[in-house]
Protein backbone atom coordinates (compact mmCIF):
# COMPACT_ATOMS: atom_id res chain seq x y z
CA UNK A 1 0.00 0.00 0.00
CA UNK A 2 2.69 2.42 0.92
CA UNK A 3 4.21 1.64 -2.45
CA UNK A 4 1.03 2.31 -4.19
CA UNK A 5 0.63 5.84 -2.90
CA UNK A 6 3.32 8.37 -2.15
CA UNK A 7 3.61 9.83 1.32
CA UNK A 8 2.16 13.03 0.03
CA UNK A 9 -0.85 11.21 -1.39
CA UNK A 10 -1.39 9.39 1.88
CA UNK A 11 -1.27 12.75 3.60
CA UNK A 12 -3.96 14.03 1.26
CA UNK A 13 -6.21 11.05 2.00
CA UNK A 14 -5.71 11.37 5.74
CA UNK A 15 -6.24 15.10 5.62
CA UNK A 16 -9.41 14.79 3.58
CA UNK A 17 -10.83 12.34 6.09
CA UNK A 18 -9.89 14.55 9.02
CA UNK A 19 -11.22 17.67 7.36
CA UNK A 20 -14.50 16.03 6.36
CA UNK A 21 -15.15 14.38 9.70
CA UNK A 22 -14.36 17.55 11.62
CA UNK A 23 -16.41 19.65 9.22
CA UNK A 24 -19.47 17.44 9.66
CA UNK A 25 -19.18 16.99 13.41
CA UNK A 26 -18.43 20.62 14.12
CA UNK A 27 -21.27 21.94 12.02
CA UNK A 28 -23.77 19.36 13.26
CA UNK A 29 -25.02 21.20 16.37
CA UNK A 30 -25.52 24.42 14.44
CA UNK A 31 -27.09 22.41 11.64
CA UNK A 32 -29.64 20.87 13.97
CA UNK A 33 -30.47 24.21 15.53
CA UNK A 34 -30.87 25.92 12.18
CA UNK A 35 -32.90 23.04 10.78
CA UNK A 36 -35.19 23.15 13.81
CA UNK A 37 -35.62 26.89 13.49
CA UNK A 38 -36.42 26.57 9.79
CA UNK A 39 -38.79 23.64 10.31
CA UNK A 40 -40.74 24.88 13.29
CA UNK A 41 -39.95 28.54 13.76
CA UNK A 42 -42.09 31.40 12.55
CA UNK A 43 -39.84 34.35 13.06
CA UNK A 44 -38.84 37.42 11.22
CA UNK A 45 -35.94 36.66 8.92
CA UNK A 46 -36.97 33.06 8.35
CA UNK A 47 -36.61 33.53 4.61
CA UNK A 48 -33.28 35.31 4.95
CA UNK A 49 -31.84 32.57 7.14
CA UNK A 50 -33.03 29.98 4.68
CA UNK A 51 -31.45 31.88 1.82
CA UNK A 52 -28.18 32.32 3.67
CA UNK A 53 -27.93 28.64 4.43
CA UNK A 54 -28.38 27.77 0.77
CA UNK A 55 -25.97 30.36 -0.62
CA UNK A 56 -22.94 28.08 -0.81
CA UNK A 57 -24.95 25.79 -3.02
CA UNK A 58 -25.94 28.50 -5.48
CA UNK A 59 -22.65 30.30 -5.77
CA UNK A 60 -19.75 28.89 -7.77
CA UNK A 61 -17.44 27.36 -5.17
CA UNK A 62 -14.60 29.70 -6.06
CA UNK A 63 -16.80 32.62 -5.12
CA UNK A 64 -17.55 31.07 -1.77
CA UNK A 65 -13.86 30.39 -1.31
CA UNK A 66 -13.01 33.94 -2.18
CA UNK A 67 -15.58 35.30 0.22
CA UNK A 68 -14.18 33.05 2.93
CA UNK A 69 -10.70 34.34 2.15
CA UNK A 70 -11.93 37.91 2.48
CA UNK A 71 -13.71 37.36 5.79
CA UNK A 72 -11.91 34.53 7.54
CA UNK A 73 -8.46 35.11 6.05
CA UNK A 74 -5.57 36.61 7.99
CA UNK A 75 -6.55 40.08 6.94
CA UNK A 76 -10.27 39.39 6.96
CA UNK A 77 -12.41 41.07 9.60
CA UNK A 78 -13.67 37.93 11.30
CA UNK A 79 -10.37 36.14 10.77
CA UNK A 80 -8.47 38.87 12.62
CA UNK A 81 -11.02 38.98 15.38
CA UNK A 82 -10.93 35.22 15.96
CA UNK A 83 -7.16 35.23 15.87
CA UNK A 84 -6.77 38.05 18.38
CA UNK A 85 -9.40 36.97 20.85
CA UNK A 86 -9.44 33.21 20.63
CA UNK A 87 -6.27 32.36 18.83
CA UNK A 88 -8.23 30.51 16.17
CA UNK A 89 -6.63 30.72 12.77
CA UNK A 90 -8.27 29.35 9.65
CA UNK A 91 -6.01 30.84 7.04
CA UNK A 92 -3.96 28.23 5.20
CA UNK A 93 -4.50 25.63 7.91
CA UNK A 94 -6.44 22.40 7.80
CA UNK A 95 -8.99 24.10 10.03
CA UNK A 96 -9.66 26.45 7.14
CA UNK A 97 -10.22 23.50 4.83
CA UNK A 98 -12.65 22.13 7.39
CA UNK A 99 -14.41 25.49 7.56
CA UNK A 100 -14.74 25.59 3.77
CA UNK A 101 -16.02 22.03 3.66
CA UNK A 102 -18.47 22.73 6.48
CA UNK A 103 -19.81 25.82 4.78
CA UNK A 104 -20.22 24.05 1.45
CA UNK A 105 -21.87 21.02 3.02
CA UNK A 106 -24.08 22.99 5.40
CA UNK A 107 -27.11 23.35 3.10
CA UNK A 108 -27.20 19.60 2.57
CA UNK A 109 -26.93 18.90 6.26
CA UNK A 110 -29.66 21.36 7.15
CA UNK A 111 -32.11 20.28 4.45
CA UNK A 112 -31.91 16.63 5.43
CA UNK A 113 -32.41 17.35 9.11
CA UNK A 114 -35.16 19.81 8.40
CA UNK A 115 -37.10 17.28 6.33
CA UNK A 116 -36.75 14.77 9.14
CA UNK A 117 -38.02 17.25 11.72
CA UNK A 118 -40.99 18.11 9.56
CA UNK A 119 -41.88 14.43 9.40
CA UNK A 120 -42.05 14.05 13.18
CA UNK A 121 -45.62 13.79 14.40
CA UNK A 122 -46.18 16.89 16.54
CA UNK A 123 -48.72 14.94 18.55
CA UNK A 124 -45.91 12.92 20.06
CA UNK A 125 -44.22 16.11 21.13
CA UNK A 126 -47.49 17.30 22.60
CA UNK A 127 -47.78 14.04 24.52
CA UNK A 128 -44.30 14.55 25.93
CA UNK A 129 -45.13 18.05 27.06
CA UNK A 130 -48.22 16.89 28.94
CA UNK A 131 -45.96 14.41 30.72
CA UNK A 132 -44.08 17.37 32.14
CA UNK A 133 -41.20 17.69 29.70
CA UNK A 134 -40.06 21.28 29.07
CA UNK A 135 -39.60 22.16 25.44
CA UNK A 136 -35.88 21.51 25.35
CA UNK A 137 -36.36 18.09 26.89
CA UNK A 138 -39.13 17.28 24.47
CA UNK A 139 -36.65 18.01 21.76
CA UNK A 140 -33.86 15.97 23.28
CA UNK A 141 -35.92 12.95 24.27
CA UNK A 142 -38.53 12.75 21.56
CA UNK A 143 -37.74 14.82 18.49
CA UNK A 144 -34.02 14.14 18.39
CA UNK A 145 -34.20 10.34 18.62
CA UNK A 146 -36.93 10.28 16.01
CA UNK A 147 -34.89 12.34 13.55
CA UNK A 148 -31.72 10.32 14.04
CA UNK A 149 -32.05 8.59 10.66
CA UNK A 150 -32.50 11.99 9.05
CA UNK A 151 -29.51 13.41 10.87
CA UNK A 152 -27.47 10.44 9.78
CA UNK A 153 -28.61 10.91 6.20
CA UNK A 154 -27.63 14.56 6.39
CA UNK A 155 -24.26 13.72 7.88
CA UNK A 156 -23.44 11.24 5.14
CA UNK A 157 -24.51 13.67 2.48
CA UNK A 158 -22.44 16.38 4.10
CA UNK A 159 -19.50 14.05 4.54
CA UNK A 160 -19.60 13.07 0.89
CA UNK A 161 -19.81 16.68 -0.15
CA UNK A 162 -16.94 17.58 2.18
CA UNK A 163 -14.82 14.79 0.71
CA UNK A 164 -15.46 16.13 -2.79
CA UNK A 165 -15.18 19.83 -2.01
CA UNK A 166 -12.55 21.49 -4.08
CA UNK A 167 -13.24 24.93 -5.46
CA UNK A 168 -13.88 26.73 -2.20
CA UNK A 169 -11.10 24.93 -0.39
CA UNK A 170 -8.33 25.63 -2.85
CA UNK A 171 -9.43 29.23 -3.17
CA UNK A 172 -9.59 29.79 0.56
CA UNK A 173 -6.66 27.84 1.96
CA UNK A 174 -4.67 27.01 -1.17
CA UNK A 175 -3.17 23.61 -1.85
CA UNK A 176 -0.32 23.11 0.58
CA UNK A 177 0.70 19.46 0.86
CA UNK A 178 0.32 18.10 4.36
CA UNK A 179 -1.55 21.17 5.51
CA UNK A 180 -4.37 22.02 3.16
CA UNK A 181 -3.97 19.61 0.27
CA UNK A 182 -7.10 17.49 0.32
CA UNK A 183 -7.81 14.57 -1.95
CA UNK A 184 -9.66 16.68 -4.56
CA UNK A 185 -6.84 19.26 -4.57
CA UNK A 186 -4.32 16.48 -5.14
CA UNK A 187 -6.46 15.10 -7.95
CA UNK A 188 -6.63 18.57 -9.44
CA UNK A 189 -2.89 19.01 -9.30
CA UNK A 190 -2.37 15.78 -11.21
CA UNK A 191 -4.91 16.71 -13.79
CA UNK A 192 -3.09 19.98 -14.48
CA UNK A 193 0.07 18.37 -15.75
CA UNK A 194 0.75 16.13 -18.71
CA UNK A 195 0.62 12.48 -17.84
CA UNK A 196 -0.99 13.01 -14.45
CA UNK A 197 -4.17 11.12 -15.35
CA UNK A 198 -3.21 7.74 -13.98
CA UNK A 199 -2.11 9.21 -10.66
CA UNK A 200 -5.38 11.13 -10.56
CA UNK A 201 -7.35 7.97 -11.33
CA UNK A 202 -5.76 6.19 -8.37
CA UNK A 203 -6.82 8.97 -6.05
CA UNK A 204 -10.31 9.02 -7.54
CA UNK A 205 -10.66 5.33 -6.76
CA UNK A 206 -9.66 5.97 -3.18
CA UNK A 207 -12.22 8.74 -2.89
CA UNK A 208 -14.88 6.43 -4.25
CA UNK A 209 -13.91 3.65 -1.86
CA UNK A 210 -14.10 5.95 1.13
CA UNK A 211 -17.43 7.37 0.09
CA UNK A 212 -18.99 3.97 -0.52
CA UNK A 213 -17.75 2.69 2.81
CA UNK A 214 -19.28 5.68 4.55
CA UNK A 215 -22.55 5.23 2.68
CA UNK A 216 -22.83 1.55 3.50
CA UNK A 217 -22.01 2.14 7.13
CA UNK A 218 -24.57 4.87 7.45
CA UNK A 219 -27.17 2.85 5.60
CA UNK A 220 -26.61 0.06 8.01
CA UNK A 221 -26.85 2.19 11.13
CA UNK A 222 -29.88 3.96 9.76
CA UNK A 223 -31.71 0.70 9.04
CA UNK A 224 -30.91 -0.54 12.51
CA UNK A 225 -32.38 2.61 14.02
CA UNK A 226 -35.44 2.51 11.79
CA UNK A 227 -36.03 -1.17 12.47
CA UNK A 228 -36.28 -0.52 16.16
CA UNK A 229 -38.82 2.22 15.70
CA UNK A 230 -41.03 0.55 13.13
CA UNK A 231 -41.07 -3.13 13.89
CA UNK A 232 -43.48 -4.93 11.57
Amino acid at each position, binding site marked *: MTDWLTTQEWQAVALSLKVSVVAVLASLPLGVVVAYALARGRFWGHGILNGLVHLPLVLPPVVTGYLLLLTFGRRGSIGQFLDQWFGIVFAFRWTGAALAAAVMAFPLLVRAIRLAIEAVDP*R*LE*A*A*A*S*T*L*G*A*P*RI*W*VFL*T*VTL*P*LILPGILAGMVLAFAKAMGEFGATITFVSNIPGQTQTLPSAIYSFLQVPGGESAAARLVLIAIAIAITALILSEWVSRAVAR*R*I*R*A*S
Partner: protein
Amino acid sequence: MMLSVDLQHHMPGFDLDLTFTAPAGVTALFGPSGSGKTTIINAIAGLTSPQSGRIEADGQVFFDSARGVNLPPHRRQLGYLFQDARLFPHLTVRQNLLYGSWFARKRPARAEFGQIVEMLGIGHLLTRRPAGLSGGERQRVAFGRAILSRPRMLLMDEPLAALDEARKAEILPYLERLRDETGLPILYVTHSVSELARMATTVVMLDQGRIAASGPADQIFADPATAPLLGIREAGSILNARVVSTDGDGLSRLQSGAGPLWLSQPGLVPGRDLRVRIMARDVMLSLQAPEGISALNIIPARVESLTQTGRDILVRLEAGPETILSQITRRSAQLLDLRPGMPVHAVLKTLSVAPGSVAQSLSSAAQTPEARE
Protein backbone atom coordinates in the same frame (compact mmCIF):
# COMPACT_ATOMS: atom_id res chain seq x y z
CA MET B 1 -58.86 20.74 43.83
CA MET B 2 -61.27 22.51 41.61
CA LEU B 3 -61.03 23.21 37.91
CA SER B 4 -63.01 25.98 36.30
CA VAL B 5 -63.27 26.29 32.59
CA ASP B 6 -64.65 29.07 30.44
CA LEU B 7 -64.04 28.68 26.73
CA GLN B 8 -64.99 30.28 23.47
CA HIS B 9 -63.50 28.89 20.30
CA HIS B 10 -64.69 29.22 16.77
CA MET B 11 -63.79 26.85 13.94
CA PRO B 12 -65.35 26.75 10.50
CA GLY B 13 -68.55 24.79 10.99
CA PHE B 14 -68.10 24.36 14.70
CA ASP B 15 -68.43 26.68 17.68
CA LEU B 16 -67.43 25.99 21.21
CA ASP B 17 -68.83 28.20 23.94
CA LEU B 18 -69.15 26.90 27.46
CA THR B 19 -68.48 27.38 31.12
CA PHE B 20 -68.29 24.70 33.75
CA THR B 21 -66.50 23.79 36.95
CA ALA B 22 -65.15 20.40 37.82
CA PRO B 23 -64.87 19.80 41.56
CA ALA B 24 -62.77 17.02 43.06
CA GLY B 25 -63.87 13.58 41.97
CA VAL B 26 -64.60 12.37 38.49
CA THR B 27 -66.17 14.83 36.10
CA ALA B 28 -67.52 13.11 33.05
CA LEU B 29 -67.70 14.89 29.72
CA PHE B 30 -70.45 13.16 27.86
CA GLY B 31 -71.77 13.92 24.41
CA PRO B 32 -72.10 12.65 20.89
CA SER B 33 -69.18 12.29 18.52
CA GLY B 34 -67.98 15.67 17.37
CA SER B 35 -69.55 17.60 20.24
CA GLY B 36 -66.23 19.08 21.32
CA LYS B 37 -64.99 16.84 24.10
CA THR B 38 -61.45 16.39 22.81
CA THR B 39 -61.22 20.07 21.98
CA ILE B 40 -62.07 21.01 25.58
CA ILE B 41 -59.57 18.58 27.05
CA ASN B 42 -56.88 19.83 24.69
CA ALA B 43 -57.56 23.36 25.82
CA ILE B 44 -57.27 22.37 29.46
CA ALA B 45 -54.03 20.51 28.78
CA GLY B 46 -52.64 23.54 26.96
CA LEU B 47 -52.34 21.80 23.60
CA THR B 48 -54.66 24.25 21.90
CA SER B 49 -55.26 27.81 22.90
CA PRO B 50 -58.90 28.79 22.82
CA GLN B 51 -59.73 32.08 21.19
CA SER B 52 -60.98 33.45 24.44
CA GLY B 53 -61.76 32.33 27.93
CA ARG B 54 -60.17 31.41 31.18
CA ILE B 55 -59.05 28.13 32.68
CA GLU B 56 -58.09 27.92 36.30
CA ALA B 57 -57.19 25.06 38.60
CA ASP B 58 -57.14 25.64 42.34
CA GLY B 59 -56.41 29.28 41.94
CA GLN B 60 -53.58 28.72 39.45
CA VAL B 61 -54.48 30.34 36.17
CA PHE B 62 -53.67 28.06 33.23
CA PHE B 63 -55.09 30.33 30.61
CA ASP B 64 -56.61 33.76 30.57
CA SER B 65 -57.12 35.46 27.25
CA ALA B 66 -57.91 38.76 28.95
CA ARG B 67 -54.64 38.81 30.88
CA GLY B 68 -52.63 37.07 28.20
CA VAL B 69 -51.76 34.13 30.43
CA ASN B 70 -51.07 30.81 28.74
CA LEU B 71 -49.13 28.29 30.82
CA PRO B 72 -47.25 25.76 28.68
CA PRO B 73 -48.47 22.15 28.96
CA HIS B 74 -45.50 20.90 30.95
CA ARG B 75 -46.12 23.40 33.73
CA ARG B 76 -49.75 22.37 34.15
CA GLN B 77 -48.91 18.96 35.64
CA LEU B 78 -51.81 17.16 34.08
CA GLY B 79 -51.81 13.53 33.04
CA TYR B 80 -53.44 13.18 29.66
CA LEU B 81 -54.57 9.85 28.28
CA PHE B 82 -55.14 10.44 24.59
CA GLN B 83 -57.82 8.98 22.39
CA ASP B 84 -54.94 7.53 20.33
CA ALA B 85 -52.28 6.16 22.62
CA ARG B 86 -49.36 8.26 21.30
CA LEU B 87 -46.63 6.08 22.71
CA PHE B 88 -43.08 7.07 21.89
CA PRO B 89 -42.05 4.65 19.14
CA HIS B 90 -38.34 4.84 19.89
CA LEU B 91 -38.65 3.95 23.55
CA THR B 92 -39.38 0.59 25.10
CA VAL B 93 -42.56 0.11 27.04
CA ARG B 94 -40.62 0.55 30.28
CA GLN B 95 -39.06 3.78 29.06
CA ASN B 96 -42.44 5.01 27.94
CA LEU B 97 -43.87 4.27 31.36
CA LEU B 98 -41.07 6.06 33.16
CA TYR B 99 -40.95 9.03 30.81
CA GLY B 100 -42.96 11.41 32.94
CA SER B 101 -41.63 10.39 36.33
CA TRP B 102 -38.27 11.94 35.65
CA PHE B 103 -39.81 15.37 35.33
CA ALA B 104 -42.01 14.73 38.33
CA ARG B 105 -39.27 13.51 40.63
CA LYS B 106 -39.86 16.35 43.04
CA ARG B 107 -43.50 15.45 43.52
CA PRO B 108 -44.51 12.46 45.61
CA ALA B 109 -45.32 9.27 43.74
CA ARG B 110 -48.95 8.24 43.94
CA ALA B 111 -48.44 4.78 42.66
CA GLU B 112 -45.57 2.42 42.47
CA PHE B 113 -44.19 1.28 39.16
CA GLY B 114 -44.56 -2.42 39.86
CA GLN B 115 -48.08 -2.03 41.15
CA ILE B 116 -49.25 -0.18 38.05
CA VAL B 117 -47.53 -2.62 35.72
CA GLU B 118 -49.21 -5.52 37.41
CA MET B 119 -52.64 -3.98 37.41
CA LEU B 120 -52.37 -3.22 33.72
CA GLY B 121 -51.02 -6.67 32.90
CA ILE B 122 -48.13 -5.29 30.89
CA GLY B 123 -45.24 -6.88 32.76
CA HIS B 124 -44.34 -9.13 29.83
CA LEU B 125 -44.23 -6.15 27.45
CA LEU B 126 -41.72 -4.00 29.34
CA THR B 127 -38.79 -4.61 27.00
CA ARG B 128 -40.82 -4.39 23.79
CA ARG B 129 -41.27 -1.33 21.61
CA PRO B 130 -44.73 0.07 20.86
CA ALA B 131 -44.70 -0.90 17.17
CA GLY B 132 -45.69 -4.52 17.81
CA LEU B 133 -48.26 -3.91 20.54
CA SER B 134 -51.94 -4.63 20.06
CA GLY B 135 -54.49 -1.82 20.29
CA GLY B 136 -55.45 -2.62 23.85
CA GLU B 137 -51.87 -3.10 24.96
CA ARG B 138 -50.94 0.35 23.69
CA GLN B 139 -53.80 1.94 25.54
CA ARG B 140 -52.82 0.23 28.76
CA VAL B 141 -49.24 1.41 28.46
CA ALA B 142 -50.45 4.93 27.75
CA PHE B 143 -52.58 4.74 30.86
CA GLY B 144 -49.63 3.66 32.97
CA ARG B 145 -47.49 6.40 31.48
CA ALA B 146 -50.02 9.08 32.39
CA ILE B 147 -50.45 7.82 35.96
CA LEU B 148 -46.74 7.47 36.58
CA SER B 149 -46.11 11.08 35.59
CA ARG B 150 -47.61 11.96 38.99
CA PRO B 151 -50.16 14.41 37.69
CA ARG B 152 -52.30 16.54 39.94
CA MET B 153 -55.22 15.92 37.64
CA LEU B 154 -56.03 13.27 35.04
CA LEU B 155 -57.56 13.99 31.66
CA MET B 156 -58.87 10.85 30.02
CA ASP B 157 -60.24 10.78 26.50
CA GLU B 158 -62.21 7.55 26.02
CA PRO B 159 -59.58 5.65 27.90
CA LEU B 160 -61.30 2.29 28.01
CA ALA B 161 -62.94 2.08 24.60
CA ALA B 162 -60.25 -0.24 23.26
CA LEU B 163 -60.14 -2.53 26.29
CA ASP B 164 -61.90 -5.80 26.91
CA GLU B 165 -64.40 -6.17 29.72
CA ALA B 166 -62.04 -8.09 31.96
CA ARG B 167 -59.39 -5.41 31.77
CA LYS B 168 -61.95 -2.65 32.20
CA ALA B 169 -63.22 -4.39 35.31
CA GLU B 170 -59.71 -4.27 36.71
CA ILE B 171 -58.96 -0.69 35.84
CA LEU B 172 -62.19 0.96 36.92
CA PRO B 173 -61.81 0.10 40.63
CA TYR B 174 -58.26 1.35 40.45
CA LEU B 175 -59.46 4.65 39.05
CA GLU B 176 -62.00 4.84 41.82
CA ARG B 177 -59.31 4.26 44.37
CA LEU B 178 -57.19 6.96 42.81
CA ARG B 179 -60.13 9.29 42.96
CA ASP B 180 -61.05 8.43 46.51
CA GLU B 181 -57.74 7.85 48.22
CA THR B 182 -55.68 10.54 46.63
CA GLY B 183 -58.37 13.02 45.74
CA LEU B 184 -56.89 13.13 42.25
CA PRO B 185 -59.50 14.89 40.16
CA ILE B 186 -60.29 13.21 36.86
CA LEU B 187 -61.87 14.64 33.75
CA TYR B 188 -63.26 11.72 31.90
CA VAL B 189 -64.60 11.55 28.35
CA THR B 190 -66.73 8.55 27.61
CA HIS B 191 -69.49 7.27 25.39
CA SER B 192 -70.38 4.56 27.83
CA VAL B 193 -73.25 5.36 30.16
CA SER B 194 -72.31 2.56 32.49
CA GLU B 195 -68.79 3.92 32.93
CA LEU B 196 -70.34 7.33 33.39
CA ALA B 197 -72.74 6.16 36.05
CA ARG B 198 -70.10 4.25 37.86
CA MET B 199 -67.30 6.77 37.85
CA ALA B 200 -68.77 10.21 37.62
CA THR B 201 -69.41 12.44 40.57
CA THR B 202 -70.14 15.34 38.27
CA VAL B 203 -71.53 15.15 34.77
CA VAL B 204 -71.16 17.73 32.00
CA MET B 205 -73.30 16.90 29.01
CA LEU B 206 -72.30 18.46 25.75
CA ASP B 207 -74.09 18.96 22.53
CA GLN B 208 -72.54 20.71 19.57
CA GLY B 209 -70.06 22.69 21.56
CA ARG B 210 -72.50 23.82 24.24
CA ILE B 211 -73.47 22.47 27.62
CA ALA B 212 -76.76 20.62 27.49
CA ALA B 213 -76.89 19.76 31.18
CA SER B 214 -74.47 19.63 34.05
CA GLY B 215 -74.46 18.90 37.74
CA PRO B 216 -73.82 16.20 40.32
CA ALA B 217 -74.17 12.73 38.88
CA ASP B 218 -77.04 11.70 41.19
CA GLN B 219 -79.13 14.62 40.10
CA ILE B 220 -78.43 14.19 36.44
CA PHE B 221 -79.32 10.53 36.57
CA ALA B 222 -82.47 10.92 38.59
CA ASP B 223 -83.80 13.63 36.31
CA PRO B 224 -86.22 12.20 33.74
CA ALA B 225 -85.45 15.22 31.55
CA THR B 226 -81.88 14.09 30.95
CA ALA B 227 -82.96 10.57 30.00
CA PRO B 228 -83.11 11.35 26.27
CA LEU B 229 -79.61 12.79 26.42
CA LEU B 230 -78.25 9.62 27.90
CA GLY B 231 -80.23 7.45 25.55
CA ILE B 232 -83.55 6.33 26.93
CA ARG B 233 -82.47 2.87 27.88
CA GLU B 234 -79.87 4.23 30.21
CA ALA B 235 -82.18 6.16 32.55
CA GLY B 236 -81.82 5.23 36.18
CA SER B 237 -81.43 6.61 39.64
CA ILE B 238 -78.72 6.51 42.25
CA LEU B 239 -79.42 5.32 45.76
CA ASN B 240 -77.10 6.17 48.61
CA ALA B 241 -76.76 3.26 50.99
CA ARG B 242 -74.53 1.91 53.78
CA VAL B 243 -73.35 -1.68 53.97
CA VAL B 244 -74.75 -3.32 57.10
CA SER B 245 -73.47 -6.86 56.90
CA THR B 246 -72.22 -9.48 54.51
CA ASP B 247 -73.53 -13.02 54.83
CA GLY B 248 -71.81 -16.33 54.22
CA ASP B 249 -73.44 -16.87 50.85
CA GLY B 250 -71.94 -13.66 49.54
CA LEU B 251 -75.03 -11.50 49.80
CA SER B 252 -74.69 -8.13 51.50
CA ARG B 253 -77.39 -6.27 53.28
CA LEU B 254 -77.43 -2.52 52.81
CA GLN B 255 -79.51 0.11 54.46
CA SER B 256 -80.73 2.90 52.23
CA GLY B 257 -83.20 5.68 52.69
CA ALA B 258 -85.59 3.57 50.67
CA GLY B 259 -85.28 0.58 52.97
CA PRO B 260 -83.08 -2.51 53.10
CA LEU B 261 -81.32 -3.60 49.92
CA TRP B 262 -79.64 -6.92 49.07
CA LEU B 263 -76.68 -6.88 46.73
CA SER B 264 -74.45 -9.65 45.46
CA GLN B 265 -71.22 -7.71 45.06
CA PRO B 266 -67.89 -9.00 46.20
CA GLY B 267 -65.84 -6.89 48.53
CA LEU B 268 -68.52 -4.87 50.26
CA VAL B 269 -67.17 -3.84 53.63
CA PRO B 270 -69.70 -3.25 56.42
CA GLY B 271 -69.87 0.40 57.32
CA ARG B 272 -69.00 1.65 53.86
CA ASP B 273 -71.19 4.22 52.16
CA LEU B 274 -72.06 3.33 48.61
CA ARG B 275 -73.73 4.79 45.55
CA VAL B 276 -75.90 2.22 43.85
CA ARG B 277 -77.15 2.88 40.38
CA ILE B 278 -80.50 1.37 39.63
CA MET B 279 -81.50 1.23 36.00
CA ALA B 280 -85.10 2.30 35.41
CA ARG B 281 -85.67 -0.58 33.04
CA ASP B 282 -84.64 -3.10 35.67
CA VAL B 283 -87.26 -1.94 38.17
CA MET B 284 -90.52 -3.90 38.01
CA LEU B 285 -93.66 -2.58 39.71
CA SER B 286 -96.10 -4.73 41.63
CA LEU B 287 -99.32 -3.73 43.31
CA GLN B 288 -98.93 -6.32 46.11
CA ALA B 289 -95.69 -7.53 47.59
CA PRO B 290 -95.01 -10.57 45.41
CA GLU B 291 -94.24 -13.93 47.00
CA GLY B 292 -92.37 -17.05 45.95
CA ILE B 293 -90.24 -14.99 43.61
CA SER B 294 -86.50 -15.02 43.12
CA ALA B 295 -86.14 -11.24 43.38
CA LEU B 296 -84.90 -10.35 46.86
CA ASN B 297 -85.42 -6.59 46.75
CA ILE B 298 -88.97 -5.53 47.19
CA ILE B 299 -89.17 -1.88 48.12
CA PRO B 300 -92.43 -0.23 49.15
CA ALA B 301 -92.82 3.13 47.43
CA ARG B 302 -95.29 5.72 46.24
CA VAL B 303 -95.83 6.87 42.67
CA GLU B 304 -94.78 10.47 42.38
CA SER B 305 -95.15 11.13 38.65
CA LEU B 306 -95.59 9.39 35.34
CA THR B 307 -93.69 10.75 32.32
CA GLN B 308 -94.10 9.50 28.81
CA THR B 309 -90.65 9.05 27.29
CA GLY B 310 -90.73 7.86 23.73
CA ARG B 311 -92.95 4.81 23.63
CA ASP B 312 -92.62 4.04 27.33
CA ILE B 313 -93.52 5.46 30.69
CA LEU B 314 -90.91 6.62 33.19
CA VAL B 315 -92.38 6.30 36.67
CA ARG B 316 -90.77 8.41 39.37
CA LEU B 317 -91.17 6.71 42.73
CA GLU B 318 -90.75 8.15 46.18
CA ALA B 319 -89.23 5.66 48.58
CA GLY B 320 -88.60 7.43 51.85
CA PRO B 321 -86.27 10.33 51.05
CA GLU B 322 -84.94 8.63 47.93
CA THR B 323 -86.07 8.68 44.33
CA ILE B 324 -86.29 5.54 42.23
CA LEU B 325 -87.05 5.52 38.50
CA SER B 326 -88.93 2.68 36.86
CA GLN B 327 -89.43 2.33 33.16
CA ILE B 328 -92.43 0.27 32.04
CA THR B 329 -94.58 -0.11 28.93
CA ARG B 330 -97.70 1.93 28.47
CA ARG B 331 -99.64 -1.31 28.45
CA SER B 332 -98.39 -2.21 31.94
CA ALA B 333 -99.14 1.26 33.26
CA GLN B 334 -102.70 0.89 31.99
CA LEU B 335 -103.11 -2.63 33.28
CA LEU B 336 -101.93 -1.61 36.74
CA ASP B 337 -103.87 1.65 36.47
CA LEU B 338 -100.99 3.63 37.94
CA ARG B 339 -101.67 7.13 39.19
CA PRO B 340 -99.59 9.62 41.22
CA GLY B 341 -99.89 8.98 44.94
CA MET B 342 -100.58 5.27 44.56
CA PRO B 343 -98.61 2.88 46.79
CA VAL B 344 -96.67 0.23 44.85
CA HIS B 345 -93.77 -2.17 45.32
CA ALA B 346 -90.61 -1.74 43.34
CA VAL B 347 -89.17 -5.17 42.54
CA LEU B 348 -85.51 -5.43 41.70
CA LYS B 349 -83.47 -8.55 41.00
CA THR B 350 -80.36 -8.57 43.12
CA LEU B 351 -78.31 -9.43 40.08
CA SER B 352 -79.77 -6.64 37.98
CA VAL B 353 -77.50 -4.28 39.80
CA ALA B 354 -74.38 -4.46 37.67
CA PRO B 355 -71.07 -4.54 39.54
CA GLY B 356 -70.18 -1.45 37.62
CA SER B 357 -73.17 0.30 39.10
CA VAL B 358 -71.95 0.22 42.66
CA ALA B 359 -69.36 2.73 43.64
CA GLN B 360 -68.00 4.11 46.82
CA SER B 361 -69.46 7.35 47.97
CA LEU B 362 -67.09 10.17 48.04
CA SER B 363 -67.33 12.94 50.53
CA SER B 364 -66.84 15.35 47.70
CA ALA B 365 -69.62 13.67 45.78
CA ALA B 366 -71.88 15.19 48.33
CA GLN B 367 -70.59 18.66 47.66
CA THR B 368 -72.69 20.66 45.32
CA PRO B 369 -70.64 21.27 42.23
CA GLU B 370 -71.51 24.62 40.85
CA ALA B 371 -72.16 24.56 37.19
CA ARG B 372 -72.42 28.07 35.93
CA GLU B 373 -74.16 28.05 32.62
